[in-house]
């Protein structure tokens, strides 16, 4: 049976479907930002951005950009009615203190037990930059990762043990990928869903790890 990968938008949609009404959510820089476009219109989901804003709205219309009102990726955003501004220590207290329900992050690697590597490839020539990644990884009630399961060279980003420098230890609950969704548990990966037509055996082969049924 044939199968195809979820597109980025389908993946964003898949993540969005699991976010509950009233949730406080932080969407990391990069692909996770796409999730905002797929949040159900009939739910109220409150977006937090680490640089001091909760109740973040969509990008402004062209010409309406205000670069004092930006997200963590420095892109212009808006604020919804009911939003609030605060300073950096308060913003990270909110994150570190477990007040954000869900944080969605990109990753280079995630281990089966939930270790996350998403800030540094470890290359010597690379200038290291961590930003709020380590705070986000360990602060939210649930940390979800959203990635393409395989690198461009076909290597699995889900690994037994991260070889890239860690962002956080045992911090990832769920990994949403373009071929399946997983839970990270102390006993390894558990399958939540899988794209139509892909077999469990084939998924394990691609990922290179044993995957227990949910």
């Amino acid at each position: 049976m044939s199968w195809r990968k979820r597109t980025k938008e389908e993946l964003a949609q898949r993540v969005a479907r699991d976010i509950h009404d009233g949730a406080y959510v932080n969407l990391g820089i990069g692909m996770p930002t796409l999730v905002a476009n797929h949040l159900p219109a009939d739910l109220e989901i409150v977006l937090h951005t680490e640089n001091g804003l909760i109740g973040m709205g969509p990008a402004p219309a062209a010409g309406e950009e205000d670069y004092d009102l930006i997200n963590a990726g420095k892109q212009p955003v808006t604020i919804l009615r009911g939003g609030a501004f605060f300073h950096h220590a308060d913003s990270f207290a909110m994150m570190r203190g477990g007040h954000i329900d869900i944080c969605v992050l990109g990753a280079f690697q995630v281990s089966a037990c939930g270790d996350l590597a998403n800030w540094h490839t470890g290359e010597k020539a690379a200038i290291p930059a961590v930003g709020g990644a380590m705070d986000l990884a360990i602060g939210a009630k649930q940390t979800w990762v959203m990635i393409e399961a395989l690198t461009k060279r076909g290597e699995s980003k889900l690994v037994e043990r991260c070889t890239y420098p860690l962002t956080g230890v045992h911090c990832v609950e769920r990994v949403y990928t373009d071929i399946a969704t997983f839970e990270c548990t102390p006993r390894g990966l558990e399958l939540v869903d899988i794209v139509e037509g892909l077999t469990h055996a084939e998924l394990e082969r691609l990922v290179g790890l044993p995957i227990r049924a949910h």
Partner: protein
Amino acid sequence: MIKKIAASIAEALSDIHDGATILIGGFGTAGIPGELIEGLIEQGARDLTVVNNNAGNGDTGLAALLNAGRVRKMICSFPRQTDSQVFDALYRSGKIELELVPQGNLAERLRAAGAGIGGFFTPTGYGTSLAEGKETRVIGGKPYVLEYPLHGDVALIKAERGDRWGNLTFRKTARNFGPVMATAAKRTVASVYEIVELGDIDPEIVVTPGIFVHRIVRIPRVATQAAGFRMAGRP
């Protein structure tokens, strides 16, 4: 009589000494006190340690200060941006030292300095290379890293409105590190777009009380410029 309003940026920055630790507010370009940084370049202090979330955008502001060779060490969370070429070049050629701090630990270390806390156990960074060599402890079953306060000699921050007692309000996400850095430095200099009479800022909405501010300088309003990211469809 309390008169914290400085006649000029030069006056506000006159006593910054070589080797000082300078806390510079801002996240991306929002809240970056560009005018005060230009003033610091003119003032001439060198061998500085600079604390900012990033490490400069383009070739103005913090990037210009770096480019002028005034900064010995950057303490920041995210130096690498699409337009951080000045820092990148200095770093690659070994001309600047970098202390990389997770953003929340950076904010909390500044807050601890302002709040008289001698050290704190943070969960952020535990088990990562940024906690290497640091004291750790399991408290209530959860692992933490011990981090210490980060004090500044001078804080340079950008606010929106101020009065002669130094009370400040901020604008949108340009607030970011400003209020925290104001508490963490021996001297805080704030630029404002508007100076109002004492009492014109409602005491319920003062964000930074004047006790944390030593000089304020009015600057002409200029809209904050985009920086630090790639616009869709542009190189």
